[in-house]
């Protein structure tokens, strides 16, 4: 079924596909994921602390982002940002959009995790004289991060696959590169299966990293 020519094509294209995976797809997902986690912690903290006005702004942000497709957000940024004087290259723009998009979802994950920390933890913190931010930093954030970690990591794995949408704003990532190679050879299916396997490989590695991460974060002696 796989003739010699197809085999040759698969072998010669593999490094090219992998290169764009390692140079574009993974960095895009990982950088956006890290930034989105920082954003999510801020947005979740504002809500957890019930900061007036800011809290409403955060709710609005989450409402808009979760209620519109990522693809539309990418397009709006691509055509809209230059209008307000922001001329970023498409990769940077994609990082920004993925960060803002993922930030909204992760903020909800983090908020739920913060609310799941028993109230007594906060009260005990007050009683030893800590202020809200100190308790956040030492008690609430570490505990809620531990709770949220698997969900956050799931989001990262989703994002690795969603990066192909960045092609819509001219970012040449792994899938677009595969499409180009396929277009030159008129041999689509084998190459798409090949790129699927590379995505699968990335996600398998990330799942492994997640397992290790959960071990490292530990469960404070609960399972020993």
């Amino acid at each position: 079924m796989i003739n010699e020519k197809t085999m040759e094509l698969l072998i010669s294209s593999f490094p090219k596909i992998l290169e764009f995976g390692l140079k574009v797809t993974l960095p895009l997902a990982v950088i956006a994921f890290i930034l989105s986690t920082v954003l999510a912690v801020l947005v979740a903290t504002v809500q957890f602390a019930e900061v007036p006005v800011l809290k409403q702004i955060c709710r609005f942000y989450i409402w808009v982002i979760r209620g519109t497709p990522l693809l539309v957000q990418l397009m709006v940024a691509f055509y809209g940002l230059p209008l307000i004087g922001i001329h970023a290259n498409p990769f940077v723009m994609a990082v920004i959009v993925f960060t803002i998009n993922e930030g909204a979802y992760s903020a909800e994950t983090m908020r739920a995790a913060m609310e799941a920390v028993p109230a007594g933890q906060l009260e005990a913190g007050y009683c030893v004289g800590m202020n809200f931010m100190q308790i956040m930093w030492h008690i609430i954030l570490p505990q809620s991060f531990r709770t949220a970690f698997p969900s956050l990591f799931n989001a990262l794995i989703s994002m690795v696959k969603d990066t192909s949408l960045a092609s819509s704003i001219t970012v040449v990532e792994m899938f677009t590169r595969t499409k180009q190679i396929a277009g030159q050879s008129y041999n689509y299916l084998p190459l798409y299966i090949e790129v699927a396997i590379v995505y699968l490989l990335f996600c398998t590695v990330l799942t492994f990293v997640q397992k290790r991460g959960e071990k490292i974060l530990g469960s404070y002696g609960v399972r020993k």
Partner: protein
Amino acid sequence: MKLLEIRNLHKKFDSTEVLKGVDLTVEKGDVVSILGPSGSGKTTLLRCINFLEKADEGDLVFGEKTYHLPKTSRDDISSIRKRTGFVFQNYNLFANKTVLHNVTLGLTSARHIHAKAAEEKALEVLRKVGMADFAGQYPSQLSGGQQQRVAIARALATDPDIIFFDEPTSALDPELTAEVLEVMRELAHEGMTMIVVTHEISFAKEVSSKVVFMAEGKVVEEGHGADFFENPKEDRTKEFLRLTKN
């Protein structure tokens, strides 16, 4: 010397009044036991004194100053909390911190004391409650009695003027209760000022300089130590003592 006084404390949850004008005076070195049936407002009283609940009415005299409870500023609340300790019924140890760090956190984070000095102080108070050997463990690895002793060490570490105990042994088995009461007994003998909400009548009899009996959001009767138990005046008190005698 008067250390703390509560005057006319009122607290409502929604429309039900849980505290209906409570007055309480605590002298330095006092061990005040608060008794009373479940739901009488004992926990709420302690929580209002430490601002975990906001009182609707009342004043707090603490040290030299008088604070109007519903309108105490954030800074005043913080400075009052830094001079008090609180021991909860369910311990509330920081789940993500080791025993040692449970005790040092109030020193390093809240008071900016150097880590080394904080650790020394923590080990000193942990030794006192017999938990120094468990410094590296997490709360989930300890028994309830051990957790409560760590919680007492955590409260002690910051050298508070007074420690509030809210039924510190009511979640514990009898033998674990004994080890916690032993630590509290020692503190009482050392002159630590404490307010203890408890159901342990014999403990209250033994260590209290003052006993307060509450019912339905009011102080029904108060008396001095053993005298309170021998000559209760109010019918409600007599009935409560009769029912709790076993």
